[in-house]
């Protein structure tokens, strides 16, 4: 538990790196960025599809459209282009997901895709993938919109006049 938590914490640092990298690039298109990672446009399109699907199964929210998962994974793939460690983790993830069944992972039905993820969850690449997605997903402002998390509050004067104590459904007298 301790060790896995340490590993999990480390990805907050990965998330920092990722946001720094993505904001420093002007209007990144996932195609060119992930091409840089995977080497060819075809491969990178396949990687984008695969990881977008995996991200949805890792952190499923019915309300959140695929386009948001896609943009989170675009950031991750872009970061991998400059991070050999992450890049090789993603490569093993892709290889492992695709080699568990006779068909490539993206061609499987959703329950079967989930089953493959469950089979692989003990692998070290899986931990890195999950925590990289978790950090990038839950620190992505597009995700916040769908779960009603507003992000930074300093510029709005905090919550002192915006409902930090507005709860009204608790039992009387408490």
């Amino acid at each position, binding site marked *: 538990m301790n060790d896995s*938590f340490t590993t999990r914490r480390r990805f907050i640092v990965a998330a920092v790196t990722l946001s720094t990298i993505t904001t420093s690039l002007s209007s990144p298109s996932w195609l060119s960025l992930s091409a840089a990672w995977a080497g060819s446009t075809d491969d990178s399109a396949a990687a984008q599809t695969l990881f977008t699907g995996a991200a949805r199964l*890792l952190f499923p929210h019915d309300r959140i459209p695929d386009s948001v998962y896609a943009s989170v994974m675009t950031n991750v793939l872009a970061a991998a282009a400059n991070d050999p460690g992450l890049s090789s983790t993603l490569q093993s993830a892709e290889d492992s997901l695709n080699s568990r069944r006779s068909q490539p992972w993206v061609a499987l039905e959703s329950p079967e895709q*989930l089953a493959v993820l469950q089979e692989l969850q003990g692998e070290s690449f899986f931990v890195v993938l999950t925590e990289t997605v978790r*950090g990038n997903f839950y620190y992505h402002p597009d995700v916040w919109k769908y779960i009603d998390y507003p992000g930074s509050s300093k510029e709005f004067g*905090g919550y002192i006049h915006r*409902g930090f104590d507005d709860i009204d459904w608790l039992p009387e007298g408490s």
Partner: protein
Amino acid sequence: MSKLFELKDGSVVVVIGSGAGGGTVANELAQKGIDVVCLEAGSRLTLADIVNDPPAMDAKIGWHDKRMGSMAWICKTVGGTTMRWSGVTPRIQEHEFKALSTYGQFDAGTTLIDWPITLDELAPYYDKAEDKMGVSGTHGIPPSAETNNFKVMKAGAKRVGYKEVTSTRTAINPVARDGRAGCQQLGFCNSGCAMGAKWSTLYTEVPAAEKTGNFELRTEVMAVKINHSKSGQVTGVVYADKAGILHEQKARAICVAGNVVETTRLLLNSASPMFPEGLGNSSDHVGRNYMRHMFAITNAVMPNPVNYHRGTRQSGIILDEQYHKPGRGFAGGYILETLGLDPWNLSNIVGGWGSDNTKFTDKFTYIAGAFVTGEDPPEAANRITLHATEKDANGLPVPVLTYRDHPNSLAMREHSIKMLRELYESLGATEFHGGDVPLGAHNMGVARMSAKAEDGVTNRWGQIHDIPNLFVSDGSVFSTSAAANPTLTIVALAIRQADHIAARMNQKTL
């Protein structure tokens, strides 16, 4: 105004670290007219540098040098971990200062002792610390405003029969006081308080010390070794500047406050022919008895919105379980505290993946949350050591943190989670998650105060038993952990230590 001291000026007291312990002892000494040089590994931010962006703030204030083993979530920045802390400031109770007498030794692995000081002795310093830090509900300061998350906790507490529920005991200004703003309920307390409402030495002790004209802060310098004379008195601190160049600041006395992991590393790394096992380590206790409290975190999905991200992360506590009631199946007690999280924190703490995880984040605005801190028995095998071969960027041996929960802590965690589940379910919680959170946020032990030199590292003043002018001024000196969040006690002990150092200087014994 800030003063500059010469490296060869051996009349100064050198303080290592500018966090809760170091910042306080340095300022207290400077206020008494004593010259102080404070060495701080991190850089100096201003309030304008603080943004509501946890990953960006972690990059600015976090400690990212290599470490191995259990994690310790502490800071490298002027102000140390008081930039990241939540401000909860309960006192240690009388019986907790007498841990061995009250609980007895747990088993062959535990190393409980009684503190060499009592609550009576520390009480006047607790008063001073609360006043200095601006603890809500003390010294005429109003209670902290009740956040939604606290109101839920309070309502549930009533239902399960808890009586001691309070929104006091937080070192966050409810209203402006002492040059610091009142809390605007921004809700990013653990990434630095952009208002300066939460006590941090960055904007309290450090500038106050600078005003005396007796104090110099050197930033982005890493203390790597303490030197001593043939007679066994410490004489100076070797530190690496930003470029990695080594300097030695001469000193009359030295106070180490690097926050447990770094305090251990510095004492052990200063080994010499006279002190072959490291400074203060003739008893083989340096680095041992490492404590970090029994921690638990719970998150409950409530039937209606709570919005626990709004406002202070922690500003209310339940004290009913802090007492020693062995009938519960464990020794010592724990404190229940409110805790609000952001979506990443929540997802991370619930852990795992898939819908078992997202059933919490999906209901983000409906979550109520709590944190538990409880007594953690010292064990000789819970310890910090230096890696034999691994070195960090400064060429220093990498610290290795070995820590496990004692079975007493496991039983206590289970009990606290059961109580919190009852509390939130009494109000209709539909999902509940409770678990461990091995953060290493409250670090204690490793240079503990002991009445007998063979039982610890420091005496009742935090002075290394066998070195008259070397002091430890952080949580390392805790003899046992008690249940309370540690920082109020660190600050009270630092104020007391400064009085002692000044008195000895007057008597010419230092």
